[in-house]
Structure formats: structure tokens, C-alpha cells
């Protein structure tokens, strides 16, 4: 992407519970993730894509079906929005981010989110072309829905209640083509 394209890009921030779908090459969907997961789906032929941002409810594992229900619904909303704009389900590709362990505690909701999204994509036959999941660092994600390009920047912030130590993945920009 050229410097001019960056200057004219229109940022759309996607917060928890939201999603955004676009075929506008100037649109970049952005979000910040801790334990949450953002799924970025892209149809390379139709030239459109979309990002969501969700967190599965955490009840310490007592109701896994409840968590899956919520996640499946979040994914369905994004997929249906893409299909309405002309995407083909068979062409969808996924890049997924987030699912970090941000706090020490009995349950690791970030891991639950990561396991869910990998399983969902596998079950639904949507290829996972790249991912940045897990670890202990928050992530800032940029996704260009029209091209499918994604960029993730991890922070070096240690989880609360734990002494600072290096994050499991290097901080900084990682270009995920």
C-alpha cells in the first residue's frame, strides 16, 4: 500500500459485539484485543471482507455449549453480512487474532476463545490462512476488508498480577499478507 493510500484510508473501529463488512479499498477495520477474538473473513474474488470482535461468556467451563452458542452466533452474523454483499461461502478465507491470557485466574477465557474459533472454522470448512492467537499480550489489529490484508501489533504489557516478563511473541508490527 502506498503512503497516499494510507493517508486516505478510512478507519472503522470494531468494538466487542460489533462487526464491519466492506468492499471499499480505502476502509481499514481496526480493533484492540485482549482475551477477545477478532475473525477477519475475506472473499478474494468478490473483493470484500469483514471483521468481527467477540468474547465468549466465561463461567469457568460450566456451560461450554452456552459459550459455543454465543460464538457461533457472532460468526453467523458476520458470514451472513458477507453473503448479503455478494461473498461466496465457498471462497471465504479467515485470519484470526486475539485470545490472549490477560489475567491470572482459574480459567483462561482467551484460550477458550482461541479453541472455539479454530474449531468453528475447521467444522465450517473455512480455510484459516493465518492466525495470531494466545500469548499474554494485547493486540492491535488492522484489516483491509477489500484486499484481505491484515497487520497485527502486539504490546509488551504483562498480565495483571504477574511480574513483567517478555511476551511469548515479539512485539511490533507483523504483516500477515
Amino acid at each position, binding site marked *: 500500500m502506498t503512503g497516499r493510500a494510507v493517508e486516505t484510508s478510512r478507519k472503522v473501529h470494531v468494538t466487542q459485539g460489533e462487526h464491519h463488512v466492506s468492499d471499499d479499498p480505502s476502509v481499514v477495520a481496526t480493533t484492540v484485543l485482549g482475551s477477545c477474538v477478532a475473525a477477519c473473513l475475506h472473499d478474494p474474488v468478490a473483493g470484500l471482507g469483514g471483521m468481527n470482535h467477540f468474547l465468549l461468556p466465561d463461567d469457568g467451563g460450566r456451560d461450554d*455449549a452456552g459459550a*459455543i452458542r454465543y460464538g457461533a452466533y457472532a*460468526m*453467523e452474523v458476520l458470514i451472513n453480512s458477507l453473503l448479503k454483499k455478494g461473498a461466496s*461461502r465457498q471462497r471465504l478465507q479467515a485470519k484470526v487474532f486475539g485470545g490472549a491470557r490477560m489475567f491470572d485466574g482459574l480459567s483462561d477465557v482467551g484460550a477458550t476463545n482461541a479453541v472455539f474459533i479454530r474449531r468453528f472454522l475447521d467444522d465450517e470448512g473455512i480455510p484459516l490462512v493465518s492466525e495470531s492467537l494466545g500469548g499474554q499480550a494485547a493486540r492491535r489489529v488492522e484489516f483491509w476488508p477489500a484486499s484481505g490484508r491484515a497487520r497485527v501489533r502486539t504490546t509488551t504489557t504483562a498480565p495483571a498480577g504477574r511480574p513483567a516478563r517478555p511476551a511469548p511473541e515479539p512485539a511490533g508490527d507483523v504483516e500477515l499478507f
Partner: protein
Amino acid sequence: MPAASAIKTLVVDDQLTMRALIRNGLQQLGFTQIEEAVDGEDALRRLIQNPVHLVLSDFNMPKLDGLSLLRALRSHGPTRQVAFIMLTGRADNELVQRAAQFGVNNYLVKPFTVTTLKGKIEQVFGALT
């Protein structure tokens, strides 16, 4: 009071994850005769060959959506009376009204719990045993 095990059910959704969740919920309620279809067209083909008592159908699906499936079933003699519960999203109030015009029996807003699923089915069939 119908026995859940006596109610033949077809679950129609293009997402395998959602079909598996609904099947799991139905099994918890005692349902044993559960078939699945991946879209409205698939559902219509199965229902004409093998009638059921209850259809639980998503709305947004490729080929034939839930509303078109409902219309087709209501206009075809042998399937005219089948109980039809629509699965919908929060923002689909208009859809629910349209489905009511075509004779939908009830609707379920995703994501729903097994308790809600039971309540909606019981509103159509009476208390399940």
C-alpha cells in the same frame, strides 16, 4: 402431552456448528428422531420424501432461505400442516412479521438456551414428556 421422542424433527441451518448445537439441545430434551438439512432446498427435498412433525429452520441460507422454505411448505398439501419454528437474529423483527403472515408457528432468537428452545416447542406442541 406429546413425548419428545415421538416428534420427528428436521433442523435446517447452513452452519454445521449451529446444527450440532440444536441437535444437542433437542437430545437433551428427549428428542431422538432428528434429521438435518444444510439449506432450504435440501430441506424441501427431504421433507417431500420424508415428512416430519417439526421444522426448526434458520432464515439466512444459500439456495433457498427460511422464508421461501416456509412458503413452499405451506403451499404443498402434504407439508401444509408441519410445525415450523424460525431461527432468527435480534434485528429481524420485520422478518418475523413476514413469517407470521406465511403461517410460522413460532420463532427463536439466536443465541438461545435449551430452556428457551423447550419453551418455544411447548408453545406449539404442548408440554413435552
